[in-house]
């Protein structure tokens, strides 16, 4: 019988650190192949429709950037927090608050907008996300309440708040009581960057966030403190790094970026405030952050990949009549395989029975 054993490596493998995300993608595709086959579809055609076809047109590539934008914005912020062991799970809520605050500005100045309106909305959006993230930061630093729970629970509060607003104050007065706001005026909408697509200014923000996140983590002393706190809190205490400050900083930063992402959605592709403004970007960003190895550049790539899963999922719904859940299935498989293959960073696979671990028959005889 062939045995597979895990053998500890002396040192974490740098190569595997970058290879396992690729391996996870390959395994996800393989599992998808089997899944489609089991469901009675032609697996090759289905995978083509899901993963390749959206990339064959300019419009498709543009949609990829549109979907990746909120994911990357949220994930860059989350990853910085995760590096410091600050587990903000509530980006979805901060995203929503960004849309509420920034979109609220657009509605408040409806009809009076000028060049100043969009910058004001951007600031308000980021501030809304920060304010929402400040609640878990306060509860964590003051009462030592787990930010995992508080930030997650606040997401549902945020969604209900949005629902309340679009059914009340934000509702379009000429909208026949539909729970939607007015369409934003020209001055409140993100300018389009590439003609013929929906790629908007938010994508530029996402790229700036990637660059800023990299500089912060790789070059600044604050980034160094974040790393040390995440790796070895005791050493951070020894060195005199203020952990509460870092908790505030990382939560405000990730909340602010998530809020910005929310604003970019309502002021970008959506163009108004609706009861549902996100297909779960804030949660998917958690997968993006880990798939990208918590590294800003990795996150950019992972964000594009995840965006593809959204677009491909839509294409599969339309083209093959698959249920909406297919997107979640692929995202879940990807995270699952990534976590599973991560073991290869510290362990290597050995095949066969040959090796030092052999049960001592003689020793058992003595013991008996």
């Amino acid at each position: 019988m062939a045995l597979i054993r895990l053998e500890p490596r002396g040192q974490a493998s740098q190569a595997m650190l970058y290879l396992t995300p690729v391996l996870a993608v390959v395994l996800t595709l393989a599992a998808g192949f089997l899944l489609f086959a089991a469901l009675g579809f032609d697996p090759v055609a289905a995978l083509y429709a899901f993963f390749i076809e959206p990339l064959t047109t300019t419009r498709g590539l543009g949609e990829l950037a549109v979907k990746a934008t909120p994911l990357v914005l949220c994930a860059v912020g989350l990853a910085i927090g995760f590096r410091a062991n600050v587990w903000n799970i509530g980006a979805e809520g901060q995203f929503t608050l960004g849309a509420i605050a920034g979109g609220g500005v657009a509605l408040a100045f409806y009809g009076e907008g000028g060049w100043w309106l969009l910058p004001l909305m951007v600031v308000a959006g980021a501030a809304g996300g920060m304010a929402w993230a400040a609640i878990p930061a306060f509860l964590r630093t003051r009462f030592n309440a787990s930010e995992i729970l508080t930030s997650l629970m606040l997401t549902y509060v945020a969604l209900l708040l949005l629902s309340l607003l679009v059914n009340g104050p934000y509702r379009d007065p000429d909208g026949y009581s539909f729970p939607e706001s007015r369409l934003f005026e020209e001055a409140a909408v993100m300018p389009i960057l590439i003609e013929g697509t929906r790629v908007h200014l938010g994508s530029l923000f996402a790229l700036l966030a990637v660059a800023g996140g990299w500089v912060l983590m790789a070059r600044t002393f604050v980034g160094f403190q974040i790393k040390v706190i995440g790796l070895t809190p005791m050493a951070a205490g020894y060195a005199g790094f203020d952990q509460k400050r870092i908790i505030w900083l990382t939560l405000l930063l990730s909340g602010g970026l998530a809020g910005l992402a929310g604003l970019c959605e309502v002021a970008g592709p959506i163009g108004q405030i609706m009861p549902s403004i996100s297909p779960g970007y804030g949660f998917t960003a958690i997968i993006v952050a880990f798939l990208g190895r918590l590294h800003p550049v990795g996150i950019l790539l992972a964000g594009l990949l995840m965006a593809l899963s959204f677009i491909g999922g839509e294409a599969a719904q339309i083209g093959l009549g698959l249920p909406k859940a297919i997107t979640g299935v692929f995202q879940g498989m990807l995270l699952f395989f990534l976590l599973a293959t991560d073991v290869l960073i510290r362990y290597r696979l050995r095949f066969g029975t040959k090796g030092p671990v052999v049960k001592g028959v003689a020793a058992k005889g003595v013991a008996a």
Partner: protein
Amino acid sequence: MTDQPHRLELRQITKSFPGCLANDRVDLVLRPGEIHALLGENGAGKSTLVKMIYGVQHPDSGTMLWEGRPVTVADPNEARRLGIGMVFQHFSLFDTLTVTENIALGLEKPGPMAALAQRIATVSERYGLALDPQRHVHSLSVGERQRVEIVRCLLQDPRLLIMDEPTSVLTPQETTKLFDTLRRLASEGCTILYISHKLEEIRALCDRATVLRGGRVVGACDPKAQTARSLAELMIGTELSTPERLPAAVSGAPRLEVRHLSTTSDNPFATSLKDVALEVRGGEILGIAGVAGNGQAELLAALSGEDKVADPDSVRIDGRPVGHLGPRERRTIGLAFVPEERLGRGAVPELSLSDNALLSGYARAPLVKGGMVQFGRAKSYAETIIRSFNVVTRGHRAEARSLSGGNLQKFIIGREILQKPDLLVVGQPTWGVDAGAAAAIHQALIDLARGGAAVLVVSQDLDELFVLSDRIAVLFHGRLSESRPTHRTTVEEIGLLMGGLFNATTEDEDEALHAV
């Protein structure tokens, strides 16, 4: 006696790791009822050898005979079934579980918890290893954790007991008591394989010694016929340099003053400091002795700033009240600090030596400018440390965890000393560090003091304190004794103080009884 089989015999045991031959054709014979010392510097292969005996690792080649029969020890469970017990230098305990639960996890048939707790209490009392079975391990000091490991082994009535540096956390009196226990165990026929850097102890306790160097057996001797110096030289293969000391040139006002320092903690198992007072002047080394868990961790944290003190005046550096300041501000004033735990507190295991140079170096060396890390400067700072303190490593890119204990400690001490502090506070400067590195560290501390800095050393190693200190004080149950000039005291006197025989009130004695 002679026709009795050897308890354990190793023949030509070889074990290699990627890039390193840890054991090279090692032969070792352990007789029933003998106390056998295994000597060698860090990295000589002692740990690998005993781990193979205990089944944690497996030899590449060679034979192991247990009581005359060849065996392969697949894992520690099997080793325990054979009758091999081991007390590790690094503890394998679960922080969130109690002492009893931890011990139960190491036993094949723990039985009911209440009965086990009773047995633990009995054994720990019998061997003088004060231990409360109900306490959670996270609240225990280093010394107390080791007691858990020792008791866990003793509960299993081993026929071969491997002890890796067991006495580093005991008072001389307790050590004597432990030696009585070990000798009693040996006289009952149990073999003891004893690993220690304390050569005097080996001379006092062991019947035979095997010396390892670079993975090979380089000699065997009767330690009683050797001096500590000749044993050390056998170990390192060259002549040993003794730290040089000039009489203290104590100068000026106290650099560190502690007055009425009392602490309370949310942790019910922490030792509160009670009205601690001390002062250290420039040029002087003050040694603080004491058994682990008597308030050392709390004192060090209160001095480093990791725990702030309610009354700012209770800790003064150069006359300035600092009790309310954190570690960063205290460092800026002139403090440098070497913590007890080098990996995981004094250094970040996963980060490079460059990054670890930055860890505390940022406060006094110009390594950060405008919020940006000056990586070039951090690198050259790390290289300066490596060069000045002879740190054996691949270079400034090496991860901290890749260094041996002694080399990492040289690096950390170098990092602190090269910041040219006015005041250096050091916890356990040479715990688990080999003789060569220890001598270098001692010399560096003495040189720093000679240069005018005040040095405070907290250690459980009395030999070390007697080598280093100008004055010695003792911590017991959170109280600090008056300090005595080193040349006017003796190991015995300090040992008695470590056992609590100083102005102990009735209340303290009650506490001492409850603590047992």
